[in-house]
């Protein structure tokens, strides 16, 4: 008999209706196979499933800007990638966005797990979250905050296609309304 945890994991692993299942399938459909990331509790099922799928080259980096450099190089070499991070990681990216992704016109695809809102318990996270959209707006970068599962596939698929065809970065911000977020336990 499967434990509750195993049942949840099985559902997460098989269902395309989960937010992370949609991310995985949308990446595949758009031939995005290189996935460097800096971990986040909420992204854990996505990261686990990406590691389990041989289509993807999935690996951790020491810092988010390193991951941006890697997918930028890969794009120029003819391979598509996307970076996974949380809000605090995005906050480290202003320089690389303004000096690499934007001026060189690189379709940098970012999935950002949103901390700092809807029940945040860490003061630092709530403050750093407020820096994210002003940074994106000041560089005129396309970004979407996703709150609904039924809209997610459309937004993700169209955003990726727009990033590639217009050679511009895009940030897809995964709100707790979509992912459940991280709740105060420890």
């Amino acid at each position, binding site marked *: 008999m499967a434990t509750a945890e195993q049942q949840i994991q099985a559902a997460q692993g098989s269902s395309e209706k989960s937010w992370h299942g949609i991310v995985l399938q949308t990446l595949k459909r758009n031939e995005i196979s290189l996935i460097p990331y800096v971990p986040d509790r909420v992204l854990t099922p996505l990261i686990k499933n990406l590691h389990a799928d041989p289509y993807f080259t999935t690996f951790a980096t020491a810092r988010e800007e390193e991951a941006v450099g*890697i997918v930028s190089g890969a794009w120029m070499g003819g391979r598509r990638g996307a970076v996974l991070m949380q809000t605090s990681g995005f906050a480290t990216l202003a320089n*690389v966005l303004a000096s690499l992704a934007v001026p060189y016109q690189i379709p940098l695809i970012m999935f950002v797990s949103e901390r700092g809102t809807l029940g945040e318990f860490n003061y630092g996270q709530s403050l750093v979250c407020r820096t994210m959209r002003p940074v994106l707006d000041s560089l005129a970068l396309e970004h979407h905050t996703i709150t609904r599962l039924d809209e997610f596939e459309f937004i993700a698929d169209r955003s990726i296609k727009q990033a590639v065809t217009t050679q511009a970065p895009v940030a897809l911000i995964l709100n707790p309304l979509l992912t459940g977020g991280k709740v105060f336990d420890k």
Partner: protein
Amino acid sequence: MTTRNTKVMNRYDVTSRLIGKLKHEEAVIGGIGNTNFDLWAAGHRPQNFYMLGSMGLAFPIALGVALAQPDRRIFALEGDGSLLMQLGALSTIAALKPKNLIMIVMDNGIYQITGAQPTPAASVADIVAIAIGSGLANSAWAADEEDFERLVDEAMSRSEPSFIAIRIDDKPGVGTTRRDPVQIRERFMHGLGVREPL
């Protein structure tokens, strides 16, 4: 192995020696500042990529190119100050073991382009020891120009990443990179065979 008992060489001279060895459209990623200027001055190639910012990302960018094009050799030129900004990248590269990536660090212990201030690691840190400690076993100081050329030859026949450090003088870069990011990227992608010119 990791002592700095090495000759102080010149960046432009060493860069020119490297470029002279490239016969198979190898990619070269130039870090910001003088590393980049000397790469430009050594003779423009469509397979050269010139960074105009994002200090410390020469190795990560080169890693991305290496993962996208596993059959091409990828070189990356970095300064010691830039490397200090992104030391974590060394362990990422060591963990992934790209078989076609060769990292070259030009170490003069100063942030030359901003007024030659010493780096925080100047005269205390050994970047080859750091590279080895990060998991890059094929890491060495080049003793002199001849030794540098030997290390490059070795690296080109290896199927693991290599890391070569060179002590250099404080001479400024010879050329100045043209600062047009889109043109630089587009030429580079043509050079790598990813795109056709219009």
